[in-house]
């Protein structure tokens, strides 16, 4: 077999490879966000703390606050405890109400159909996570 004929024998194979190369590809994968109520409170807590406090200066105050809310059960508990930490209350006695809770409740994905009293634990958990995020700079 001449070199030319040997080369021609590869043409269909080359075309097949090219067609496969052009046509192949996995189906597109959309990103699907799954934020829930806890994540919403966590997000707004972390944003508020990162925007209006300084981690190196106020980190200790947040650790103190986090320890003191270990047994908190409601927004009222969180707000009352906030007022016991001087570095935090300096930014406002109703800081959590205005900067975290109100913004969370206003969000599009907030479960507005759930009874408010069933959401109290969500606020507590979300604030805990927000403090953690703030302290690690996330």
């Amino acid at each position, binding site marked *: 077999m001449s070199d030319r004929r040997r080369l021609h024998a590869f043409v269909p194979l080359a075309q097949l490879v090219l067609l496969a*190369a*052009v046509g192949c590809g996995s189906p597109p994968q*959309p*990103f699907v*966000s799954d934020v829930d109520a806890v994540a919403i409170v966590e997000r707004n807590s972390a944003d508020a703390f*990162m*925007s209006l406090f300084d981690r190196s200066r106020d980190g200790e105050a947040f650790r103190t606050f986090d320890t003191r809310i270990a047994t908190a059960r409601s927004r009222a508990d969180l707000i009352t405890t906030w007022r016991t930490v001087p570095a935090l209350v300096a930014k406002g006695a109703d800081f959590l109400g205005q900067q975290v809770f109100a913004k969370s409740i206003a969000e*599009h994905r907030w479960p507005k159909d759930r009874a408010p009293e069933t959401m109290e634990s969500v606020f507590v958990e979300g604030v805990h996570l927000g403090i953690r995020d703030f302290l690690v700079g996330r």
Partner: protein
Amino acid sequence: MPPRIGLVLSGGGAKGAFTVGALKVVRQKLGVDTFPVISGTSTGSLIGTLLAIDDWSTLVDIYSNVQTQNIVNPHHALVAAIAGPEAVLFAAAVLGGRAIYDTTALRATIAANVDMQAVVDAFPETLLIYNTVDLQTGRSTPFANRDFGKKVLLEALLASASMPVLMDPVPITVDGTTHQYVDGGVREFLPLGALFASDIEVDQIIAISTAPLEARRTPADYDKITDILARTVDLLDVEVGANDYQGAQLYNAILKMLENAKAAGLSRSALLQGIPDAVKPTIKDKVSIPITVIAPKDHLDLDSLDFDPAGMRAVMALGLEAAKTALA
């Protein structure tokens, strides 16, 4: 009462994470949740969309966790895998095609996360403007939720994000005529013009740019076509964005001078003497509006189509710090 803030959000693809970081501070420090008008281009249009419908946590989640394959995929995937994106450009040129990347995934990601009816319903509380460029007329073409239904708005959002050559132009039919639309950043990277033209009253404009306001030196050697393209896009973004800002500043300065002259007792006819008739409507009854620009000091170390979660989170942190400084 919180100030009425008009938002202007630049393009930049994955660099939009910088904008999201800056918005954290805008929301928290200024106590603002609702913006009377948002003008966005490209990634700024997507960010503006989720802001307008109060879906903040979803917005942060997307710009923290989305990956490139959730946004774009090469039209010729195996060619790209074997020979890199440069080969896709060649394949598209030889075999036909309008872009290197396919945006089916972006469309699916938007569909999975954005309630377009809520976007329509956000007006009149928020006028949301998607800035595009009409490939046929060459004109900057805004699409607003005041004027269009959810189907056209979805296409306009995709068009606003479609960087030409990299992503397919999007056909949109308006009044029976179909044109192809692409990323508004081709003509206006920092879309201040649409906000000024909107007639929505605001106390202040905050413009967030993912590009610095002047070109910065980079240490890299550019020996790959894709790197050269990325650097060129970066430089164009800087140039177009800086011109957009300077144009707005000049416009504001003229309005301020007119306000000062009026306060000093000059009559309206004296104020407008010598000004061409064609220009008069653009300044009639307008007032100057303070503009605060939040922009990175240097080029962000992230390619526009490199939706890498770690990189985006780093850029988001830069945006937060830049906004803290700008709004101090």
